[in-house]
């Protein structure tokens, strides 16, 4: 509870910090003496502008990306991005015709935003007014707009003035051309997006999880949805220059997908995603300034993918490595219990249950004699036995001959008791057939803890089992013949 509170506080903290980061970023860009002396950066001024600009973009993109992912709208960002190309080209045409500088962002970006939004609205319109589904609609819009844009770019390149070089930078990203104003634009847009997100956090959360609840509570879902689309468009547009329209989708989707491996709550996910986006974008930008041949968009995507792979492998929630480790651990514990059980059953067959006689060491036995583990590979058997020896449960008397120690006897009794109690439970309370109880107990016994064991004892008739081991309900070491027997009964 307290831990949850703390983690929640921290993640909100991170969001606010990210907000102030945007503002701080602007200050850092100022080439004042104060900042110069405070930031002993190894980078020169231009690099600093680029790094600050792209990392702020990553921060905001990561935050908004989580919501797109949760709303199953991740690809709409891609459609918007591709639909900006004809807008860029058109804006350039218009500006050139009016004899203004066609490469100014103040001209290009509004043009990009207009066609980007038209693209997004076309997707929505196709989805709403035709039987075509959203994915197909997105495919259509994306390719048609991008195709139109490419055609226009060709025309621009063949224009006599020929000073259009640089527009391609928007396709693959070219951070090197980022100037102070551009970084400021990113900082201001990012701060607005994150700020609005914090302000309308509950409405956005409701809309993403359960739109019907948001509607019945009277929230203006349509407006919130439009707001989310507008925020996405904003991030895509200001990010065009840094990452390029083809790869900007990575800034939205990859950090969000990676963050889901670290936490199972919304705001921590958003904070983590922002963080990953920020780190990925900043390192990508640094790599691209050090190796100018690598387009910055590609560099950022590569870093993001590395961060994603790390998260997918080592993420605290559901990371693959932890899953494997858990499975391995479980299998080991299962093996140990099975070995203990088969030792006990063997001793029981011999009529020398060690705890009945207060022995401190059991009668010796050969591993190969044990019924249950007979089909194990020799290495698996040896591994488990050796582990027991290390833990002081078994002693090896000769090459193949082993015996239980006092602790081993205790553990052995505990394991067999669990199994038999469960068998009793399945037979008496769940009414399973004798054939099924052994397997049922086998499946579930490894998950029992002491409290559940105590409850089991209470539930089973003859609660006075105490620390005795109940008798087995089926012949030991003879399961095969029992199966045959019941089969014969079934088909007389």
């Amino acid at each position: 509870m307290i831990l949850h509170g703390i983690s929640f506080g921290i993640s909100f903290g991170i969001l606010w910090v990210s907000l102030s980061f945007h503002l701080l970023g602007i200050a850092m860009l100022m080439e004042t003496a104060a900042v110069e002396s405070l930031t002993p950066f190894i980078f020169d001024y231009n690099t600093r502008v680029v790094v600050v600009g792209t990392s702020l973009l990553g921060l905001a993109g990561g935050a908004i990306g989580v919501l797109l992912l949760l709303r199953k709208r991740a690809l709409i960002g891609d459609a918007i991005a591709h639909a900006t190309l004809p807008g860029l080209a058109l804006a350039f045409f218009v500006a050139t015709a009016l004899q203004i500088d066609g490469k100014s962002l103040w001209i290009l970006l509004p043009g990009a935003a207009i066609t980007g939004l038209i693209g997004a609205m076309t997707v929505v319109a196709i989805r709403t007014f035709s039987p075509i589904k959203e994915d197909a609609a997105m495919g259509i819009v994306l390719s048609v707009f991008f195709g139109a844009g490419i055609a226009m770019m060709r025309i621009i390149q063949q224009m006599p003035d020929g000073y259009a070089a640089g527009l391609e930078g928007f396709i693959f990203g070219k951070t090197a051309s980022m100037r102070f104003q551009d970084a400021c634009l990113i900082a201001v847009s990012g701060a607005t997006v994150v700020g609005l997100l914090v302000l309308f956090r509950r409405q956005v959360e409701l809309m993403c999880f359960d739109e019907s609840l948001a509607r019945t509570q009277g929230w203006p879902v349509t407006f919130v949805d439009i707001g989310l689309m507008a925020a996405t468009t904003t991030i895509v547009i200001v990010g065009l220059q840094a990452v390029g329209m083809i790869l900007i989708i990575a800034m939205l989707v990859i950090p969000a997908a990676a963050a889901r491996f670290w936490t199972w709550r919304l705001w921590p996910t958003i904070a983590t995603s922002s963080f990953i986006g920020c780190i990925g974008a900043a390192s990508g930008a640094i790599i691209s300034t050090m190796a100018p041949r690598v387009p910055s968009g590609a560099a950022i995507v590569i870093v993001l993918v590395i961060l994603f792979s790390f998260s997918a492998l080592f993420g605290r929630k559901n990371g693959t490595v932890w899953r494997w480790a858990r499975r391995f651990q479980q299998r080991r514990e299962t093996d140990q219990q099975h070995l203990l059980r088969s030792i006990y059953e063997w001793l029981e067959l011999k009529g020398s249950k060690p705890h009945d006689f207060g022995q401190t060491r059991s009668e010796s036995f050969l591993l190969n004699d044990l019924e249950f583990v007979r089909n194990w590979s020799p290495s698996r058997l040896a591994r488990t036995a050796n582990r027991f020896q290390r833990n002081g449960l078994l002693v090896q008397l000769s090459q193949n001959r082993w015996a239980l120690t006092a602790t081993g006897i205790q553990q052995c009794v505990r394991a067999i008791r669990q199994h038999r109690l469960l068998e009793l439970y399945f037979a008496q309370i769940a009414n399973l057939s004798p054939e099924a109880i052994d397997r049922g107990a086998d499946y579930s016994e490894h998950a029992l803890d002491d409290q559940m064991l105590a409850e089991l004892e209470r539930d089973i008739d003859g609660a006075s089992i105490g620390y005795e081991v109940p008798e087995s309900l089926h012949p030991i070491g003879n399961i095969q013949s029992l199966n045959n027997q019941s089969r014969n009964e079934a088909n007389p």
Partner: protein
Amino acid sequence: MAISIRAMTVAYQRKPVLWEVNLDIPTGKLVGLVGPNGAGKSTLLKAILGMVPTIGGSVSIFGLDYQDVRSRVAYVPQRSSVDWDFPATVRDVVTMGTYGSAGWFWPLTKRERNRAHEAMEQVGILDLANRPINQLSGGQQQRAFLARALAQQADLFLMDEPFAAVDAATERAIVDCLRRLQELGKTTLLVHHDLHTVPEYFDYLVLLNVRTVAVGPMAETFTDENLQRTYGGRLTILDEVSEAIRRREAARP
């Protein structure tokens, strides 16, 4: 009257789903909404809440327009209508029920958190409060949804198939909870499928098949003839039902 509907018609792409539905539900009843597949049961709930466009007719809730009594109505959608992989804990989901009264921007207060806490307690999922919702069983998901509706502290509850594919313990817990709500004078309208349990669970019945076939107290409405008219030729269901009715009548003194 908790709900009163006059001549409501709803159509999806020209095919009428509800046709001139008239319905009056008195306050404080536990009402079952029963009918065959495609009878428009879920649509009726959504139409009451204004979530599907209606062609004609009017709805009033507690004698007022829905817009004016929004906070007094809680809706429990079908469990499958949301993505349970959403990153949230049970507590987060239940707390969402209080958002409607929490205002636009300010952080939640102790009042909202307490309401969520009480709601979880009432449906017996307090021990699951911090569990991520993607680790819940179907029954636990349904209880979380019910708790979310309770946290809203409404007077009218509209539930869409809360008993679909839940375990027996959950069904029991939900029914108990509904009874408690009824004792508090709350009204519940619940879409239900299992005709066997209808007379046991509810005290008021709406039989729906595009039109309302019958509406009224359980004893008068749950008759062979009405069910015949609701389910038409679906004989297998009918046979079961007449069997159920006969058994019930035989059991009566």
